């Protein structure tokens, strides 16, 4: 086989759209050399509660649960947010036949979070000083960003002000 022809190709696309008042629909589609699958999750705002889910899953080797939609509906009522990964995995099962399904549900949920994140990021100014102020302000608002990645690691210019304020608070209290 020629070396520049892939042995395996993979294409995963997740999209989030508004489908009504206070409702988002997040769809994760996977096509790769052995899989054809789609999971759609409907989420109600502002609670980010999963209110509907459906999908299909075809794989050369793996067998999804017989009544896939019924199986997926176990996650109806779960909220998109912190702690959701263990809840989704726990409800859908973690055996090999379900792992990719679980991952796709999680991707749908992450799409919802990234969609909301994008709205915050759209407020960032374009100029250098404004952008710096905006992103260093984010860590003050949400301290869980601190040390979360290279950009917000201890000592990064983006967290210097945050670190100084924290130190000042600690020494004055």
């Amino acid at each position, binding site marked *: *086989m020629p*070396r520049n022809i892939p*042995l*395996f*190709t*993979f*294409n*995963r*696309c*997740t*999209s*989030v*759209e*508004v*489908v009504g008042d206070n409702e*988002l629909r997040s769809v994760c589609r996977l096509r790769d*050399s052995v899989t054809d699958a789609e999971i759609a999750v409907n989420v109600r705002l*502002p*609670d980010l509660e999963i209110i509907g889910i459906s999908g299909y899953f075809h794989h050369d*080797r793996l067998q999804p649960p017989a009544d896939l939609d019924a199986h997926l509906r176990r996650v109806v*009522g*779960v*909220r998109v*947010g*912190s*702690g959701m*990964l*263990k*809840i989704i995995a*726990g*409800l859908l099962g973690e055996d090999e036949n379900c792992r*990719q399904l679980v*991952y796709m549900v999680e991707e749908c949920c992450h799409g919802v*979070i*990234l*969609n*909301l*994140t*994008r*709205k915050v*990021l759209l407020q*960032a100014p374009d100029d250098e000083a404004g952008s*710096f102020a905006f992103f260093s302000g984010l860590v003050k*608002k*949400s*301290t*869980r*960003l*601190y*040390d*979360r*990645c*290279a*950009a*917000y*690691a201890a000592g*990064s*210019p*983006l967290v210097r002000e945050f670190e100084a304020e924290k130190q000042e*608070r600690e020494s004055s209290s």
Partner: protein
Amino acid sequence: MSSQFMRSKLINVCRLDNNTLVVHGVLDDSIYSLELDFKVELAGLGCFDVEGRWLRWTTPECPRSLEFIRLVEGLKLTDPVSERVHKTLGRRSCRHYANLFLEMVYAVRETVRMLELDLPGAALSEPEPPAEADEAGDEPEKVSSTVASPERTASRGFSQKPAGGFIVDLHLHTAPASPCASDSVAEMIVVAKKRGLDGICLTDHNYLWSEKEVQKLRERHDFLILRGNEVVTDQGDMLVFGFHEEIRGVVRLRDLKEQVAARGGFIIAAHPFRGFLTFAADDIGLTVESASRREMFKWVDGVEVLNGRVTENENRLAREVAAALHLPATGGSDAHQVSEVGRCATLFPAPFHDETGLVAALRSGDYRPLSLSGD
């Protein structure tokens, strides 16, 4: 109907030579665009020559992540790698690179299966979960009028406590009982005593301490140590007291309530509004009224309104919801390491000495959350 957000991931796996695969991945979405390349030696599925490129990013410091991109070099892709990738690439570099890397690992494993290579002990089809926002800070603050205020000590750090109260940290994790915790129960107890607490509750994730073990700890440290449990339910994490049945996996909160109530136990909604990295509950329009309608509040006996690992706004919303629903309010550090022990706790008016006493005290509703943090 138009898409508000779209994320595409494209990956291909080619054969460089008889012993090597070359893997190329692209993640392109409505925020970021990045690429990752690495090679895999077929003999043992070791990963090497990792390279990354940013095409679009957000903060001015995102490019720093490339300095750490090689942290995954040497990983054997036959082994479960998710946790390690999240902790190294995800935390020190960028979680989006970690996400793409794990998708590429999945692609490599499926390729190896297609090639029908015989690799020992491989969990080859395991897709591994994306990183999640779960880190939190903590802030004490003023409260709504109807729920007990989290009281704050005037002292610096953790060194003093208010006179006349009985302070118990109701939420604490230990290693190895909670895999996410980093310090042992003995280390936690020593620090809890030093910081002036009167007792702690061990609330390891879905883990049941035996009465014998806890009794030994009490005697060894001459300190009040009580058993609890942080149970994962479909409605989020719940602190459970006075209930000592083993719970595996995720349970429905409604079912848990039934079981706990039958044994006279007490359920507290833990950090009910722990949220996201870049936006808060009010950014998405969550109000006290809408938050109060959540299913979980039908089934809990109390609400943790002062958690040591969430933001000020998240604790505030929890307090306001507890007030609106007239549910008792507690505090707990949610400590996973000694530096966090006792940041937040619950102040009871009188001492108790065992789990029966704790549950009775919780049922009385006569207590308040307390911040002992200098923050």
